[in-house]
């Protein structure tokens, strides 16, 4: 077939006009309606469901219906968690205060934000944080339980003046400049334009990442629970029996340590709020940090805090909401003595030992250094180094 020049000109002319129109459309001038400065629809959106790996004996994890777990979401959340881009001066990320080797704490008594100002509380471990108040309805995050969900919580540190001290509009502007983040937000959430990158989506991605921070099941305690009767040695086993108030060890009565009543369940956090007697308070208004009372506004809740997980506790010193105890030995010293007097002390905080009647009073006797040692060894048997070394949760940068 022969093509004449005029035919060629006509065809290429039409083609050129079409090309021109398309290009103009892209430039946005003639097309009506709202126009995006950056269109992301060319990037494929095909999210893959993410299945959280958890030990078989662990309970089901509650996933909110509006934030299903995806591979892309978790990967994005991991980057946001480790990226200082979210803080006011780009020096601090979530991971500045929640570091893997501290079981996602910073090993400081209280955390210090970007301006060098010390907060009033100690960073909390994020191990098994997906199980904190594992349901749709109840609140529970933070030492005082003031935050209802990981999604809601993740919004807070960014704007907290003594943490990352930024504004979300400012943080989002920086994120929207990054080609990598634009692509990742599109792949995780199917947004069509840069402007759709929002603080809510950032929080959702971070929450997805936090939900994978689950025990590996390799601690000695987990191996024991999974059926390996020899995973705990005799001392650790006695410690476990005391921790869970299970009493008899080879026919020998052990004193109750009462720990599991508050640090209960497989994740060893009951998700409840107690006063564990670390401060003496004559009046309910005497507590320096009102804790739960700030949330419920019931003064009988003053000085109550959430009993946090004891998993990996040997890695997350110092201890308590204000990091007052530097070692587990000090913590046990506190519990053995039975705590300080205050009106709303929890009845499980009493001197450890066997209760005996002395006159009309009940006294506790017979808690020996061996008992303390056994408890301490059990707390160390909760260490899960596989978790802190898990490559999937390390800094991706």
């Amino acid at each position: 077939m022969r093509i004449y020049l005029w035919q060629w000109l006509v065809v290429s002319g039409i083609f050129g006009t079409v090309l021109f129109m398309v290009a103009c459309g892209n430039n946005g001038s003639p097309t009506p309606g709202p126009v995006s400065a950056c269109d992301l629809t060319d990037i494929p959106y095909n999210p893959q469901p993410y299945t959280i790996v958890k030990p078989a004996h662990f309970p089901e994890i509650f996933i909110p219906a509006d934030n299903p777990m995806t591979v892309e979401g978790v990967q994005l959340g991991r980057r946001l968690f480790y990226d200082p881009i979210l803080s006011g001066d780009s020096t601090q990320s979530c991971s500045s205060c929640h570091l893997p080797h501290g079981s996602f704490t910073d090993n400081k008594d209280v955390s210090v934000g970007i301006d060098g100002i010390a907060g009033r509380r100690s960073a909390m471990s994020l191990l098994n944080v997906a199980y904190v108040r594992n349901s749709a309805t109840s609140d529970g995050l933070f030492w005082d339980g003031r935050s209802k969900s990981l999604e809601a919580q993740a919004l807070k540190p960014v704007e907290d003046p003594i943490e990352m001290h930024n504004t979300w509009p400012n943080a989002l502007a920086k994120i929207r400049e990054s080609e990598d983040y634009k692509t990742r937000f599109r792949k995780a959430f199917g947004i069509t334009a840069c402007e759709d990158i929002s603080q809510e989506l950032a929080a959702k991605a971070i929450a997805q990442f936090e939900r994978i921070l689950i025990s590996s099941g390799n601690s000695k305690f987990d191996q024991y629970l999974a059926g390996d009767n020899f995973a705990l040695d005799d001392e650790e086993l006695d410690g476990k029996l005391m921790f869970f108030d299970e009493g008899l060890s080879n026919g020998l009565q052990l004193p109750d340590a009462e720990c599991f009543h508050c640090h209960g369940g497989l994740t060893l956090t009951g998700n409840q709020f107690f006063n564990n007697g670390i401060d003496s308070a004559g009046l309910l208004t005497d507590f320096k940090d009102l804790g739960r009372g700030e949330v419920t506004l019931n003064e009988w809740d003053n000085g109550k805090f959430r009993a946090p997980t004891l998993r990996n506790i040997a890695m997350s010193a110092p201890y308590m909401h204000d990091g007052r105890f530097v070692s587990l030995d000090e913590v046990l010293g506190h519990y053995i003595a039975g705590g300080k007097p205050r009106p709303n002390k929890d009845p499980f905080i009493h001197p450890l030992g066997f209760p005996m009647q002395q006159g009309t009073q009940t006294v506790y006797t017979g808690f020996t250094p061996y008992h303390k040692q056994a408890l301490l060894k059990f707390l160390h048997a909760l260490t899960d180094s596989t978790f802190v070394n898990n490559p999937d949760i390390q800094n991706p940068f």
Partner: protein
Amino acid sequence: MKQLGLILFSMLLITLSSCKDKTTETPVSDYTLTFKATYNGQPLEKYKYYDYSDYKVRFSRFNTYISDVILLKGTEEVKLSDVEWVDFTPDDATNNLALEVPLQFQATEGTYTGIKIGFGVRPDLNAKRPSDFPANHPLAKETEYWLGWKSYIFSKVEGQGDSNADGNDDIFLLYHCGSDAVYRSYTFNQPIVVAPGSGNSVEMDLKKLFTINNQWYDLRIPTNQYTSNNPADVTVATVLMDNLVNAVSVK
């Protein structure tokens, strides 16, 4: 011809009987059972000292599992619920008054002869573990399970007391009852009306719970202060779960 008549007649019967079914079908109504915690008939107040024998006690936690709530009509049984968790002292309460816990059911309207309530977790369900249930199920609560008994903690009553009025609590009341051996189901024989907006209250009175054979349960005796630290020993749990029948009233 005879056969045809028979067929027509039976068709008529069927039609009639189905009509009858439709017209007399009794309607179903909401029925609310409201659980209330009391001390000596008054709403229970957390942390408040109550006179007890010649000393003082106060309570800080009270919750219980309920299984197999069943309405009775002679020998007929209408099951309202499998298992529920009733928490009178939740962490998010804004004051110290025990919470009233309403449980909503649906039942055919009418007057029943009684109601049966299981206190604790029914044995077949108690054989399971929290990890067997979806996160929002009442039996998914890890804190309400004790590996020592391999059982749910059927009820928790916690508190303290001051034996000698010196202002210091020296009595720690730690009653956690559990294990199949102490599951109790009690029948309350009294007319129960199910009609639009109907309901009853179930009062659980702690003073009555600790009044055993008309005697104060002596809370100054250490072995009476806690359920036990030996999973095999359910003596105190048995005393309390047995006495629930006297401590609970349906009104």
